[in-house]
Every structure is written in C-alpha cells, then in structure tokens.
C-alpha cells in the first residue's frame, strides 16, 4: 500500500488504481497517515515551510462545498524522480520522523495525523454503475443470512426476484 501511496503522490497510478487508492485513503486512517507523512517528508526534503495547523481540514471543508470531484490526472512531472528516492527514504525517514514529531509542538503533529473523518464524502464520491447482471443471484445468496428474515420471514426475497433484476 505504501508503494501505491507514493505512486499516487507522483501521479503515476492508472485510473482504476487511482480510484482504489483514493478510496482506501478515505476509509483507512493508517493509509491516510502514511499519505500525510509522505507529504511531510517531501516538504522537508524540499524545504517547504510548514503549513498552519488545520490547513488540510480547511481545504477539505472547502472541497466539500465544491460540486465536482477533484481527481488529479496522472501526469509525469518534475517530482517524479523523487519517488524512487522517497520509497527508500520513506522507511528510514518515517522512523526518524516519528522520533522527531514527538518533540515538535503539536501544531506539526496535527498536520500529519488529522483524523480520517476529516476526509469529506467529496473525495469518496463513487461511480454509479448498472446492477450487475448476477445481482439477483447475489441477493438470493445474501438473503439467507440476513437477520431481517427473522422479523419479516420470506418477504425481503421480494427484492431477489424483483422486476428490475428481470427475474434473471
């Protein structure tokens, strides 16, 4: 996963991988931490000044109001050479960083460790696709294990054989 995250940073993932990786970041606090840590490393290497506390949260909040998903297109840019160096450096740097972060004021730590819930649904927007042609089969297989059957008997099976599924 760490390899994927650094590839995502460099804009090297193909569209499907890109979607998976973004979704993982929105669901997995640990992955999101890695993502932030990598950016911190990147910034440190490039000597970028540290952003103010809660910067990421404020950007997310603004993004949440935007109607469209901001999905960076895969591009090869000047940052690319960083990647190979980063994937090697990251494992070493991460160890050092943990030690370092313990001593910096909480403001720095906040950038690296904002809670996963700070990621708004805008990032998590997903493609709607037609029902799989085997949806009826999946539902039939699933229904047997749904505790709702205990309250409703066979009634929920109405979905399983419903017309949109064409009784397929």
């Amino acid at each position, binding site marked *: 996963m760490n390899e994927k995250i650094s590839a995502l940073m460099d804009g090297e993932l193909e569209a*499907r991988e890109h*979607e*998976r990786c973004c*979704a*993982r970041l929105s*669901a*997995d606090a640990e992955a999101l931490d890695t993502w932030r840590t990598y950016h911190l490393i990147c910034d440190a290497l490039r000597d970028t000044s540290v952003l103010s506390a809660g910067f990421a949260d404020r950007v997310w909040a603004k993004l949440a109001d935007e109607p469209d998903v901001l999905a960076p297109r895969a591009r090869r840019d000047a940052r690319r050479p960083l990647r190979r160096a980063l994937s090697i450096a990251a494992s070493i740097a991460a160890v050092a960083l943990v030690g370092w972060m313990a001593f910096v004021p909480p403001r720095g730590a906040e950038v690296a460790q904002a809670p996963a819930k700070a990621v708004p*649904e805008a990032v*998590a927007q*997903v*493609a*709607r*696709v*037609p*029902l*799989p*042609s*085997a*949806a*009826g*089969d*999946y*539902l*039939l*297989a*699933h*229904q*047997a*294990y*749904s*505790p*709702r*059957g*205990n*309250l*409703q*008997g*066979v*009634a*929920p*099976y*109405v*979905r*399983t*054989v*419903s*017309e*949109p*599924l*064409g*009784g*397929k």
Partner: protein
Amino acid sequence: MKSRVFLVAIAAALCSFGSQAQHTHDATGWLKKIYHATSNLSYTGTFVYQDGQRSEASRVTHLVDASGDYEKLEALDGAQREVVRFKDEVKCYLPDSQTVKIDKRTGVRSFPALLPAQISSLAESYRITKGGSARIANLDCQVILLTPKDAMRYGYQLWADKATGMLLRARVFNDKGETVEQFTFTELHVGPRPGRDRLRSALEARSKDWRIEQAAVEPADLAATGWTMKAEIPGFHKVAEVMRMLRESRRVGQTVFSDGLAAVSVFIEPLAGRTEPLQAGLSSIGAVNIYSLEVANHAVTVVGEAPAASVRRIAYTVEYRPPQ
C-alpha cells in the same frame, strides 16, 4: 464552568436512566414478540414493497405444522414469480428465464443472530425505543424504533400488531430520515392454518424442464486460501463463510458480516469464470447497496442492507496474499 455542566449532565442521565432502561426493555420485548409471531404463526396476507422508484405487491403464506414451517411469496404485479421456502431451503421460480434457483442456508457460525436472547445485543448499535400507536391493515399497532448510533447503518421503524405481534410495516431509513425501502401489509389473516397445497408453487408442474441452478453451498475458510477482509464497521461480526455456485458454473466465496439486524456479504470469484466484464462501482436496489471492484484478478462484490459508504468501506478491506 465546563465541569459543572458535565456534573449536571451526569445527574440528569442518572435520573433518567431507570425509566430509559425500562423503555428499552419494553421495546426489545416487542422485537422478541415480532420474532415469535413471524416464526410460529400461520398466516396469509398481502404486502406492498416500496423502494423509492417503484412499488410491488406480493402475497405471502406461512404454515407451521408438525413437519416444519413452509413459506411462499408470490409476486402479484408484473411477471409471475414465486419464492417457496421449506426449513432452510429456498426455491425461486422464474418463468421469464425458465429457471428454478435453489439456495440453502449453511455454514452459519452464529445464526440466527436475532435469537431472543441476542436481541439485547442490538442495543450496541441501535437505540431501541417504543413509539406511539398506529393502525395498519385495520389492525392496532405498536411502533418500535431502532435508531442507529452512527451513520454506518440504516435505521428501522417497525409497526407490530398489538394482538399477535406480527410485523405489519417495516420502514428502513437513512441518516437524513429518508425512507430507503418499506414493506406494508394491506391485509393479513393470522390462523387458521392454510392447507399444505397452498404452500406449493403454482409453477412447480410447469417448471419440470426448466434449468435448475443449485447453489451447492458448503462451509469454507477463505483466509486459508489467502483472502482476508475486515468488518471495519463497529458492531459487525462475521456470521458465516461459505463456497457456493453462482449461476451454473461460477464458484464463489461468500463471507457474511452482521450487526444483528443488517447484514453485508462479500462475494469473491475469479474473473476468468465470468462471461461479462467487471464494472467497478456502486449500484443499489432498495436498501441493498452493491459495490464491485477487482482484487488480484478476482471480482469482489459486496452486497448489503447498509449505506453505500459502509458497503464500500468493507469492499476496500479485501486483500489477497498467496498462502504460504
């Protein structure tokens, strides 16, 4: 100042604790009553299913006798379709595709999750309260509310017949309070027992030369084959893991997670066995969300009566590592 507010809050909570506990106790008592009625009473009735885009009427017949319990569901609108259940076996008769699909519940570790003794565990994930009274299908009902404690599951509003405990309406709602799907009986007759012949499918004779799709379900241990996944959502636990046939030739692994009321299934199958390309993304039918994606040359399809975000979240925990 803050601590004083806190103390007042604690005091208030302590004062109301006694009555609230009683309230929850009453409400879970109603859930048990519904459970007993659904499994022990013989009845016939008509209900309407609504999911926002459409509504569909069905007739349901339930018979309990010495040999076990039989249940039949007949679609009254549109194409003729029937579902017949005897004990753990379910048969779907689908004249349009001239198919009988046979499914059997097996490989269950802690099912039924809603045994009366376990109903109290629902309180982990839902606030269970008694609502007011209402009239459904000319019967006096008690309203019971299961309000989710987080946005990771749907809420349920149930209307139970005061006399028999039969569930006459069930509404599933999302975190905005909007109805996701609803079942409502328009008429219900509890007892006397319907004749056994009324529980046979009217399509049985016609289906003699139809295609039969047997699920051939058997217990499985997917972790041993390299597949791991996590329930991720608080209160959800693994309740079953099986291998089964989908259609006639697709061998599929299925792991089921449940919080005691909602369930989510994770299906894993090799891409090679599929006749159609995998379309990654989200689809839904009623309260059921379906999320598909590809992992290690396999199609992963997560199906569950849970909000899209929850279904998707579980989908992204699926990982494959070749077994050692």
